[in-house]
């Protein structure tokens, strides 16, 4: 470790760490604003909105005939979201600004929240690290809910003739599972890890818009409540793709889907926009684009997509709500609309959406590989260019979801070409990974195991995507279990495994506690083996003619379905093992984490654990990228201030 005496930089810019200011501090304790008041606000909001909807639309013919009031449901849920946000205090800052009252700036808020201890995790707070931890819990809530629903799906599919749930319930479960999982997956990395890590990785104290960031989390949880409300409403029958006009025909639960996506969409746009501006404008001095950690590049590309693609979903959802409440006919062909409109709007968002899910996973793998191979990231520029290329191209492939829909036939070869082309930058992660592994010294810690699994799984997912993009083969494999297995391999096999890698890797820094290695290894192997045993047979099931979302299937496919279901139950148990590891490592047998347990050169690891709320005592000056592993005489990553510069590598590490 080299030390360098540097000039005192305390007077420059916002170099010095802010101090918690006292007067006009917010109240703390039970009678201030927190999760409890959010719940109260939500309940009040729901009843007010529902009542208003009954007043407005109680006399409508369709309401009286069907017995279901979509206007009341919509207003009830919308007011619930508003009440939730108002209750937690998310609206205080903009409201104060509107009426001209001065309010605390972000630094003051962060300092105040840091003084609250564990309570700050139940509040609206502008500390990006708190928001990141809140997102971890939020994302896990979505994941376990969706996972239980998946177990129910596989239970139903054990037998083609005996129906555990019945056709209507089954479709409800399938739809809820898909929607909950997709809502989770859009934010699973950007939310927890993006928010927590990006400012640290770029040498910043905060994100660009801390209020927007906190707002995005509380909207995310409001979205969970809205989509969960589908269940008491009787569910919705369209699957997560929500095709119209079935969505226009559906029962009360459909509003939960449409509004849920709109609400989650607001959160996505907020989170994406915030991190986008943060990465562009809040990089520390010396953090040029070519020194940006690859994870930050991935988040940059993802946030560009979040910001640009999500508005389409929002508009699409809004039209759907109007069709169901105000009896417009955007999506109803017999009354002047078009069933293609929803499909195109949805997939125009939907395809960038799946890259919103894939890119952060690539970022995590790219970030972790050098640490555990002790080699620099191979072809860094190709990796970064690939991510931006994927993001750009993702807007030009959406019609491959509609090859057989009756689109203009000249579009089919065109979108086949663009979809094939997008697999080129998508494949760059393999070039980068393989190059980094070349003649490395691989430490198979739990995060690294998950990274290897990402390569294995995403390869299968990606290659089967090429099959799907080929229009003649698409005729057989679209709409069946083949495509289902493809996207589970890419999203679950890629993204979720990468998320696990990221959690095992960064939780020691985020919480100060190491995740138990033995349980982690068990978790990894059970998850990896049973994941593949669950989803690989589904390629065959799809080729043998079973469509998606069916409660009845051909008798000769029972054995394969049973096998897949059994493996799925074991996969579910592996998640229980993960939950146990979290519980065990965080609360039962705590192993305190050193500041840099993996010996990483990353800037986020050059901070003490726990990371102070101001992140860095001095804004660092970045000297090079964080991948100078196994390089004699490599420069330090950054100059952190007067006392010590950190991040220099030695040949021995």
């Amino acid at each position, binding site marked *: 470790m080299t030390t360098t005496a540097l000039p005192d930089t305390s007077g420059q810019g916002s170099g010095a760490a802010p101090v918690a200011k006292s007067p006009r501090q917010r109240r703390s304790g039970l009678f201030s604003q927190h999760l409890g008041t959010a719940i109260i606000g939500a309940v009040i909001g729901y009843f007010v909105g529902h009542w208003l909807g009954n007043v407005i639309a109680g006399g409508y013919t369709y309401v009286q005939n069907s017995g279901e009031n979509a206007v009341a449901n919509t207003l009830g849920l919308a007011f619930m979201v508003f009440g939730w946000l108002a209750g937690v205090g998310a609206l205080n800052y903009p409201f104060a600004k509107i009426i001209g009252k001065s309010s605390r700036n972000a630094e003051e808020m962060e300092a105040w929240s840091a003084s609250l201890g564990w309570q700050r995790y139940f509040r609206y707070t502008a500390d990006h690290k708190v928001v990141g931890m809140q997102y971890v819990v939020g994302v896990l809530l979505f994941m376990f809910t969706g996972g239980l629903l998946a177990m129910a799906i596989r239970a139903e599919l054990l037998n083609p003739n005996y129906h555990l749930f019945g056709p209507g319930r089954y479709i409800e479960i399938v739809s809820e599972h898909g929607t909950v999982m997709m809502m989770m997956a859009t934010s699973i990395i950007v939310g927890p890890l993006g928010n927590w890590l990006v400012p640290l990785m770029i040498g910043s104290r905060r994100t660009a818009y801390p209020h927007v960031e906190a707002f995005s989390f509380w909207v995310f949880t409001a979205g969970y409540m809205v989509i969960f409300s589908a269940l*008491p409403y009787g569910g919705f029958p369209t699957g997560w793709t929500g095709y119209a006009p079935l969505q226009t025909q559906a029962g009360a639960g459909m509003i939960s889907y449409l509004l849920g996506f709109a609400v989650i969409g607001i959160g996505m746009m907020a989170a994406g926009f915030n991190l986008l501006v943060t990465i562009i404008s809040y990089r520390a001095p010396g953090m040029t684009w070519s020194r940006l950690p690859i994870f930050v590049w991935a988040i940059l590309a993802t946030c560009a997509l979040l910001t640009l693609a999500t508005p389409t979903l929002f508009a699409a959802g809004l039209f759907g709500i109007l069709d169901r409440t105000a009896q417009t006919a955007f999506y109803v062909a017999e009354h002047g609309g078009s069933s293609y409109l929803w499909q195109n709007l949805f997939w125009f968002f939907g395809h960038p959406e799946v890259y919103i899910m894939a890119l952060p996973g690539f970022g995590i793998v790219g970030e972790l590989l050098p640490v555990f191979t002790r080699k620099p990231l191979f072809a860094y520029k190709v990796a970064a260019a690939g991510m931006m290329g994927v993001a750009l191209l993702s807007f030009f492939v959406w019609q491959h979801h509609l090859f057989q829909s009756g689109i203009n036939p000249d579009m089919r070869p065109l979108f086949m070409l663009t979809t094939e082309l997008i697999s080129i930058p998508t494949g760059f992660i393999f070039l980068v990974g393989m190059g980094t592994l070349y003649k490395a010294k691989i430490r198979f810690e739990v995060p690294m195991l998950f990274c290897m699994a990402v390569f294995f799984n995403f390869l299968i997912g990606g290659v089967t995507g090429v099959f799907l993009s080929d229009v003649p083969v698409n005729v057989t494999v679209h709409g069946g279990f083949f495509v289902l297995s493809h996207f589970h391999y890419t999203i679950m096999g890629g993204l979720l495994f990468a998320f696990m890698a990221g959690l095992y890797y960064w939780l020691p820094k985020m919480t100060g506690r190491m995740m138990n290695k033995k349980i982690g290894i068990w978790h990894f192997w059970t998850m990896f083996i049973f994941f593949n045993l669950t989803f690989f047979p589904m390629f065959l099931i799809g080729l043998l003619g079973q469509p998606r979302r069916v409660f009845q299937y051909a008798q000769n496919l029972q054995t394969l379905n049973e096998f897949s279901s059994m493996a799925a139950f074991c996969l579910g148990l592996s998640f229980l093992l993960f939950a146990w590891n979290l519980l065990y490592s965080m609360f039962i047998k705590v192993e305190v984490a050193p500041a840099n347990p993996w010996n990483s050169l990353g800037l986020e690891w050059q901070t003490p654990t726990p990371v102070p709320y101001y992140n860095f005592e001095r804004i660092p000056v970045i000297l090079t990228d964080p991948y100078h592993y196994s390089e004699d005489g490599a420069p330090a990553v950054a100059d952190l201030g007067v006392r010590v510069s950190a991040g220099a590598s030695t040949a021995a590490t």
Partner: protein
Amino acid sequence: MSVRARAAVGVVGLFAAAGLAIWILFGLFLTTGYPSVDFTKSHTAGQPVDLTVQTVGAIGYGPHPTWVSYVVKQPNGTWIQASTWTLPAHTLVHMTIYQYDSGGPLRNQFWGSVQGVTNNAATVTSFAGSHQIGGPTSVSLIDSNATQSDSEPLSNGVGHTFAVPTLGIAVPLPAVNGNSSNQCSTSAPCPTTVDHNVVKFSFETPGPGNYPWQCFVPCGLGYLFGNGGGMGTINYMGGFLNVVNQ
């Protein structure tokens, strides 16, 4: 607390949390199973089965009282809202449907033909209240777009259909006169003192299996295309013929 004690609490807590989550999801909302009526218990092998049902305009009770529904007469004579019927395999079923609902045009007039049942015909007897006003007539085709005529009981359109798509069975059920003041207005089951049509037909059950049945009339009022609500909910306008070996 020692590590071991904490671990024990943790295990219990984890399973309790999982149990609570499962109960909330599957105990409160996504419940399993649906009611069914077993016609094999009181049935002698080789003999035909009598299956009697009603189709009503509004069930009158339960979570959706305004929804259209079928109700079935159990072997003990009581009526129940259950749309899954367990029947013996390879057995003749004599089905009687008391149709109480008014009707209109089919979305596809093809379902106005009687198909997949014995002689591809059904026998229809029409009642204005308890007073027989038409039939018994053997009917093999109903025009759901016919101009309504009070003197022609079969011109009121189609009220509902009984169809088992995977077996090719489809029987249109003539509607009652929608202008009549004597339509069923009570909760199901409706009495025979209000307007109704009695439709009788027979079919043979196939080998064991689960055969969904449904209605093809757009009778889910207030829903787009009339195919939402009760049309798309089991126990109302759709169910299963659960055919078993006896």
